């Protein structure tokens, strides 16, 4: 366990040494503040527009950070050949995968806390009220979403040779699930024969990442989600994360490490 935490610590340090996070945060803050300065029809009570734009920017930024951070972990260790002394320490291969995952995910959670704190301050200043339970649920579900994404990208990094192709494919898959995943059953209904069956099977097989995007509830001030549902979503995310990490470890276990 010490090895896992040590590896995670290195990943977290790497994240705050890199410029990605700072650039994306400054961009998000700048765009949000500029939009916040706009007045529409001399009405000071308009806030949902600002919340929506800020949340969209947060989702884009955190997704980019998660994918790029996770995609470079194992390939970078291999290219710089630091993976050999690391595994000779001795660190087991499962510890390496788990450590990289823990580091990436914790780095993403830190990023989320910073971004959502900014969002909370902006919202509270405009609405003159502190965010309710739905706000914390949105942060947690976003964190679970990023856990699945990080695990998926780590799996990709042991499957694909180039990190750029891995990052691109994972981004397309994640964005595709976010936008279309919910409707695949309807698409399957419209298809006949084996095509429909394949799409239906895909619908049940993919991780339904769209559940974790509750920005519509948060922006429009809907009530919070009940805790049984929250627990169910967390368990579902944890199962998929576990499955993807297990698959990554199984492939990585038999992988030759020469570049």
């Amino acid at each position, binding site marked *: 366990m010490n090895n896992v935490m040590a590896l995670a610590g290195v990943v977290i340090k790497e994240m705050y040494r890199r410029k990605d996070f700072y650039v994306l945060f400054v961009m998000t803050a700048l765009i949000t503040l500029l939009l916040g300065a706009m007045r529409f*029809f001399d*009405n000071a009570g*308009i806030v949902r527009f600002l919340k929506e734009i800020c949340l969209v920017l947060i989702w884009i930024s955190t997704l980019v950070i998660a994918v790029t951070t996770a995609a470079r972990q194992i390939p970078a260790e291999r290219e710089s050949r630091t993976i050999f002394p690391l595994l000779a320490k001795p660190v087991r291969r499962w510890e390496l995968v788990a450590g990289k995952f823990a580091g990436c995910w914790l780095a993403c959670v830190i990023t989320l806390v910073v971004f959502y704190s900014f969002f909370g301050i902006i919202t509270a200043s405009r609405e003159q009220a502190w965010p309710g339970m739905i706000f914390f649920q949105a942060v947690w579900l976003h964190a679970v979403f990023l856990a699945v994404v990080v695990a998926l990208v780590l799996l990709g990094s042991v499957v694909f040779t180039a990190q750029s192709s891995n990052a691109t494919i994972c981004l397309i898959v994640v964005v595709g699930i976010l936008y279309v995943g919910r409707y695949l059953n*309807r698409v399957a209904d419209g298809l006949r024969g084996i095509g429909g069956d394949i799409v239906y099977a895909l619908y049940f097989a993919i991780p339904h990442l769209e559940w974790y995007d*509750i920005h*519509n*509830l948060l922006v*429009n001030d809907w009530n919070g989600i009940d805790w049984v549902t929250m627990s169910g979503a967390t368990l579902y995310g944890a199962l998929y994360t576990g499955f993807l990490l297990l698959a990554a470890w199984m492939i990585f276990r038999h992988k030759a490490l020469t570049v």
Partner: protein
Amino acid sequence: MIQLVLTLVFVGGFTLATFLDPRLQALRARADDGTGFVAALMGDSRRLFANQFFVEADVYFHSGYYPTIFDTPEAEETLDVNSKEEAETPGAAPASGRRPEKDEGGGFLGPPRDWVERFGRHFMPTQHTHLANGKVAEILPWLRLSADLDPHRIQTYLTASYWLRGTLNQPDEAEQFLREGLRANPDSFEIYIELGYVFDYNRKNPRMARNLFELALDKWKKQDGAGLKPSPKARVEILDGLVRADEEQNDLKQLLPDLEALKAVSPFPDAVEKDIQATRAKLAAQPPGRPD
């Protein structure tokens, strides 16, 4: 030799620039319709975005409960954000600012088809509600952006004005926005009608409202004469506005011909006929020489 070629290229480039510049300027003038930089940058694609932003206003009006391309789409004219009932009856709404609405035909979602869909509905709005009271202001940024992108989209001005002058009680902003719309669409009778409502309902200035309704009627007739087939319903609205302004000013002499014009197009000619008889009776009862 190289210097000669360079000079030749420079002279050729300069000559080509003098030849092409007037043609490019002419093209730019055609594209320019008041949106300036945005029009130059986005071309006609901005109209697509303008439509999308207008729909986004309707999404906000429903607090996110909205069909996607995978559900049955709604025609633009049936969007609830265009509603003609709510501004008249703002009434009391829940503290959430959302007024529950009935879902025709069980709503666009329908019953869930499987456990994934059933569970997934916990994470999205599933109740049909409309924004109420001051919360309606949340739709305004999208309408503003829609108008900025396509200043010829008349419905955007009408919808924004409807909520501004009604529920939000901001007639000044409504008038300003409508005048902006008129600058881009000087022949729009729809904007004149809406402007007439601002002066009639909000400013309580029936004389000014009447002038605006007359202008609207003039524009409507011009469009009709040009074979553009303007909406017959709009003509009824205009004549209705004129009649109301006459009644408010107690201008019985003007009211009579306006009522007769309304009777010719109204879906309820009998009711209008009753008003005509009543007006005639009032006119007959007036002592001769009395000013209206």
